[in-house]
C-alpha cells in the first residue's frame, strides 16, 4: 500500500467519514443515552492458498459490551482479529464501524477507526519507559523533535487514573512483571482513543490473581463504554467475563451463546464438534519406589543468574508430580538440568538410585527417560524433517533403526507408520514434513517418539501448550496410561488447570524454590497464592 491507496480513500470519502465517527471524544460517550457505536465484521472470508481460514464470518460488538471469541487453535480466531486490526486483507467481506465500511490496510487504519489491540505477545520496547512505550508512534514533541516527556507522562497518568490501571510512567518496561506490562499495552491502546479493544489470549501469561485483576480492568473498560473482544480458548474465563460468546470452528462461526445458557462442557462440545471429557479420568495413584530423587539442586540460567535454588523433591513410580508456577521461575532450567541439557551448579540428581547429575542427554535417554520438551518447535522437532525422521530423532543411532554407520530407513518407516496409527497423528503420510502439521499433531509425534518404549520416568514440560482440545485430551490420557503402567511422571506446566487435572501431588515453583507442596485436590486459590511466593510476598507484585 502506498500514497495512492490513501488518496483513494480520501477520494471515496470513506476516510473522512470514519474519522468523524471515531473522533467523538470518548468521555462524552459515558452517558448511556447516546447512541452506541457498533463494530461489525460482515461476511468475512479469508482464503490462504490451500486453507480457508475464515469462511463467511459475521461478528458484531457494540460499545459497552464484552464478546468472547472462543475456538481451538487453528479455528481462525487470530486470522479474524488480524483482519480486524488491518494486518490481513480479507478475500471478501468488510469491516464496518457504525455501518460505515472502513478501508483497512494497515494497523494505522484500525487505530484511526478506534480499534485497539492487545497482543498475546506484547509489542513493547523493553528498554523504554512506560510513558515512552505508550506514546511510541504518536510522540508529543517539543522544539527540535525532543519528546515532551511531561505530556507523555500525563497521558499515562490520566488513563491509568481513569481505569485503575496502576503503573508508574517512569519505570522501564523490562523491570515490570508481566501483568503490569499488559496494563501498559492496554494504556497504549486507550491512549489512541480506542473505542473497541481486542484482547488476544490475554490471560495466558498471567497468574490467577493477575487474571482477577485483569477481569476488573475489563469490567472498568466496559463500564466506560468500550467494546471488548476477548479471544480465548479458556472456557471458564469466557463464561465469567463475556456478555456474549461466539464460537468458531474451522473458520466458521458455529454458535453464538449467552453465558447463562451454557456450561463449560457445552462450550467445549461446540468448540470441538463432539462431546469432550473435560475431567481427566484417572484412578487413585499407587506410588511405589522413588524413581527420581533431586537433592538440593541449583542451576544457573544463560545469564549466570541462579535459576534453580536448592530444590529437593522426589517422584515415585506410579504417580504424577506436577510443578506449577508462573513461567520463568526456573522451570526451564530445572527440566534442562534433569535431562542433561544443562549442567547443574550443585546438588545431585538420582535416577533409580544412580547418580545421573553429570550424565549426557543421551545417557539419560538411554535410562528410559521420556522427555517432552517445553518448546516443541525449538527443540522437540526438526521442522524441515519428515515425520519418519522426527520419529527416529533420538533413536537413529541404535539398532534396528541403524545398522553400523548406515540408517535402516525401511525400519524407520515401519516404526513411523505404526506410531502415526497408534498415536492418531493426523497426516497425509509419514513422509510429510512435520512443519506442515498442526501443533497438536506435532506434539503427538513427540509423544509417540518418547513413549514408544518401556519408560521409567516421564518428564513433560508444557505438554499441551497451544494445541487443540482433542489433542490435549489425548495426550493427557497417554500420560496417565504411562503412570498406570508404572512410570514416574513429572509434569511442568504454567497452566494451573492442567497441573490440577493430572497431578497426584503438586509442587509450586517460585524464584527457583519450592514455594509449596499440595496434594492433587488443593484449591486454585491456595496454589495461586504459592505461585506468587506465598502470602507474605503476594502484595509485592
Amino acid at each position, binding site marked *: 500500500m502506498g500514497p495512492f491507496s490513501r488518496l483513494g480513500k480520501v477520494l471515496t470519502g470513506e476516510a473522512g467519514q470514519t474519522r468523524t465517527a471515531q473522533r467523538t471524544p470518548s468521555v462524552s460517550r459515558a452517558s448511556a443515552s447516546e447512541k452506541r457505536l457498533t463494530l461489525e465484521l460482515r461476511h468475512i472470508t479469508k482464503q490462504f492458498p490451500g486453507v480457508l481460514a475464515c469462511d463467511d464470518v459475521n461478528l458484531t460488538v457494540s460499545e459497552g459490551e464484552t464478546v468472547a471469541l472462543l475456538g481451538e487453535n487453528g479455528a481462525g480466531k487470530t486470522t479474524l482479529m488480524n483482519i480486524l486490526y488491518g494486518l490481513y486483507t480479507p478475500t471478501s467481506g468488510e469491516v464496518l464501524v457504525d455501518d460505515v465500511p472502513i478501508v483497512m490496510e494497515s494497523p494505522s487504519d484500525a487505530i484511526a477507526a478506534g480499534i485497539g489491540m492487545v497482543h498475546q505477545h506484547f509489542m513493547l520496547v523493553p528498554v523504554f519507559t512506560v510513558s515512552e512505550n505508550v506514546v511510541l508512534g504518536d510522540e508529543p514533541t517539543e522544539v527540535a523533535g525532543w519528546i515532551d516527556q511531561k505530556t507523555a507522562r500525563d497521558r499515562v497518568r490520566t488513563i491509568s487514573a481513569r481505569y485503575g490501571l496502576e503503573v508508574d510512567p517512569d519505570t522501564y518496561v523490562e523491570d515490570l512483571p508481566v501483568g503490569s506490562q499488559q496494563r501498559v499495552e492496554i494504556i497504549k491502546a486507550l491512549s489512541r482513543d480506542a473505542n473497541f479493544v481486542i484482547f488476544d489470549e490475554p490471560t495466558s501469561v498471567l497468574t490467577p490473581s493477575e487474571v482477577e485483576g485483569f477481569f476488573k480492568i475489563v469490567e472498568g473498560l466496559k463500564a466506560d463504554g468500550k467494546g471488548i473482544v476477548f479471544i480465548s480458548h479458556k472456557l471458564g474465563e469466557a463464561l465469567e467475563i463475556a456478555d456474549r460468546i461466539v464460537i468458531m470452528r474451522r473458520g466458521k462461526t458455529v454458535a453464538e451463546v449467552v453465558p447463562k445458557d451454557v456450561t463449560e462442557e457445552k462450550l467445549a462440545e461446540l468448540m470441538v464438534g463432539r462431546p469432550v471429557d473435560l475431567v481427566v479420568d484417572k484412578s487413585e495413584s499407587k506410588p511405589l519406589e522413588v524413581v527420581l530423587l533431586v537433592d538440593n539442586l541449583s542451576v544457573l540460567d544463560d545469564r549466570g543468574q541462579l535459576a534453580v535454588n536448592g530444590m529437593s523433591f522426589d517422584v515415585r513410580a506410579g504417580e504424577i508430580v506436577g510443578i506449577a508456577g508462573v513461567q520463568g521461575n526456573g522451570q526451564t532450567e530445572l527440566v534442562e538440568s534433569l535431562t542433561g541439557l544443562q549442567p547443574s551448579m550443585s546438588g545431585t540428581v538420582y535416577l533409580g538410585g544412580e547418580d545421573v547429575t553429570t550424565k549426557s542427554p543421551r545417557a539419560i535417554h538411554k535410562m528410559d527417560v521420556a522427555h517432552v520438551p517445553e518448546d516443541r518447535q525449538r*527443540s522437540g522437532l526438526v521442522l524441515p524433517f519428515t515425520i519418519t525422521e522426527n520419529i527416529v530423532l533420538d533413536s537413529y543411532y541404535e539398532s534396528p533403526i541403524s545398522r553400523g554407520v548406515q540408517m535402516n530407513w525401511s525400519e524407520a518407516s515401519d516404526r513411523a507408520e505404526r506410531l502415526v496409527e497408534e498415536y492418531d497423528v493426523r497426516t497425509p503420510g509419514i513422509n510429510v514434513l512435520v512443519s506442515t502439521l498442526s501443533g497438536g499433531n506435532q506434539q503427538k509425534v513427540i509423544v509417540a517418539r518418547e513413549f514408544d518404549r518401556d519408560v521409567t520416568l516421564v518428564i513433560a514440560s508444557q505438554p499441551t501448550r497451544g494445541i487443540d482440545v482433542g489433542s490435549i485430551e489425548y495426550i493427557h490420557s497417554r500420560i496417565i496410561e504411562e503412570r498406570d503402567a508404572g512410570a514416574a511422571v513429572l509434569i511442568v506446566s504454567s497452566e494451573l488447570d492442567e497441573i490440577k487435572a493430572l497431578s497426584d501431588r503438586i509442587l509450586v515453583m517460585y524464584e527457583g524454590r519450592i514455594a509449596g507442596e499440595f496434594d492433587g485436590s488443593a484449591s486454585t486459590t491456595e496454589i495461586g497464592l504459592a505461585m506468587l511466593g506465598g502470602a507474605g510476598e503476594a502484595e509485592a507484585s
Partner: protein
Amino acid sequence: MSSDGDWGDQGYSAWYARVSGVGSSLAQAMIVPVLAVLTALIIGAVIIALTDVDTLPLWGSDPAEAFRLTMDGIFNAFKALFLGSLGSPRAISETLFAATPLILAGLAVAVGFQAGLFNIGVNGQMLIGGMAALWVGFSLDLPAIVLIPLALAAAIVGGAFWAGIAGLLKAKTGAHEVITTIMLNFIALFLVDYLLKSSIYQAPGRNDPISRPANVAAQFPRLLGDHRLQIGFLVALAAVAFVWWLMYRTTMGFEFRAVGFNPDGGRYAGMSVAWVYVSVMAVSGALAGLAGANQILGLEPYRGISNFSGNIGFDAIALALLGRSHPVGVLFAGLLFGALKAGGREMQGAAGIPIDLVLVLQALIIVMIAAPELVRAIYRIKTPEQEAGTTMSTGWGS
C-alpha cells in the same frame, strides 16, 4: 512461547535453508535454478545485442537489417558457446575438465550448507590439501596405482585438517565459521607462498614461488587420448555418490542434517553439536582438499604456484546454491559452469564476445538463486509455503 509456524530467531539459517533449497522437494528445488539459468541466458542475449556497437546505429535507419544482424550475433554467440562446450570430443573433454574442481569444491560447500555451516574457506582448504598431495606427488617414488591414492589421501587429510580448525573453533568458542574460514584463507594463501619459496617445495634453481613438478606417476592419467580430461573427474563422480550416501544413508549424515536445521533439536536428541560441527567441517575440507589436488596433479604444469586455487572456492558457493546443496544438483551445476567456461573461450575466439560475458551470466544466475523471490516474481510462481498452505491437517476432526 513460539506459536505454530514461528521459526524463532533462526532468521539467518532459515534464509539459507530456503536459498540453498535444503529440505525442499525435488520439483520445488529444481524450478528456481532452471528458471534462473534460462533467465540469465535471455539477459545475456540482450547484453550481446546492446553491446553490438556496429549494429546499434542501424536501428535508426534500417531496423529490419539491424534486427537480422543482432539475431545473427546472438545466434553465433550461443552457437559458439554450444560448440565450445559440447560440439566435439575436445569440447566435451574441456567441459568435464573445467567441471571437475568445481564439482568437488561445490560439494564441499553443499555439505556445509546441509549442516547449517557456511564454509567460505574452500579456497584455503584447496591450497592446503593441494600442497599435501603435491608433497606426496614429488617426494615418493611409487607406481601410479599406489602414489595417486596416497596423494589423494594426503589432500583429504590436509583439507580436513585446515577446515577442522574452523570447526573446532566454532565448537569450542562459538567463533563464527564465516569469519574463521575467511581468515584461514589468508593464512593458507601466504603459507603456501612461503612454502613454495622454502627448500621443501621450491623448484631447484628458481627464485619465484614455484614448486618442483610432481612425479609423472602422480600426474592424473588422461581419459580421452590427448584431451585434458583426466581421472579427477571420476574422483568427482565418486565424491558425488559418497556425499549422497553420507548425507541420506548414514547416521552421521542424519546428525549433520538434524543439527543443520535445528541445533537445539539435535542437542535435545542427544547429538553432540560440537562434534557435528568439527566433523562437518572436516568432511567439507576433505572434499575441498581433493579439488586442490586436482588443480595441481590434474593439469599442467603439475606444479604448485601462488594461489593455485584461483576463484574456485567462491564459484563453489554459487554452485552449491544453484545445485540446492544436493550432491546431484551440485553435479549438474558443476557441469553447467564447466560448459560455460569451456564454451566461453570458444565464444570469445569465434564470435568475438568477451569471455567476461560468461562471468556476467554466472553472476546473474547467482543473483537470481540468492533472491528466489525475484525469479518467482518474474514467472509468477508460488512459494512452496503458499502451495502447501499453512497446515495440511488441522488438529483433529469431527
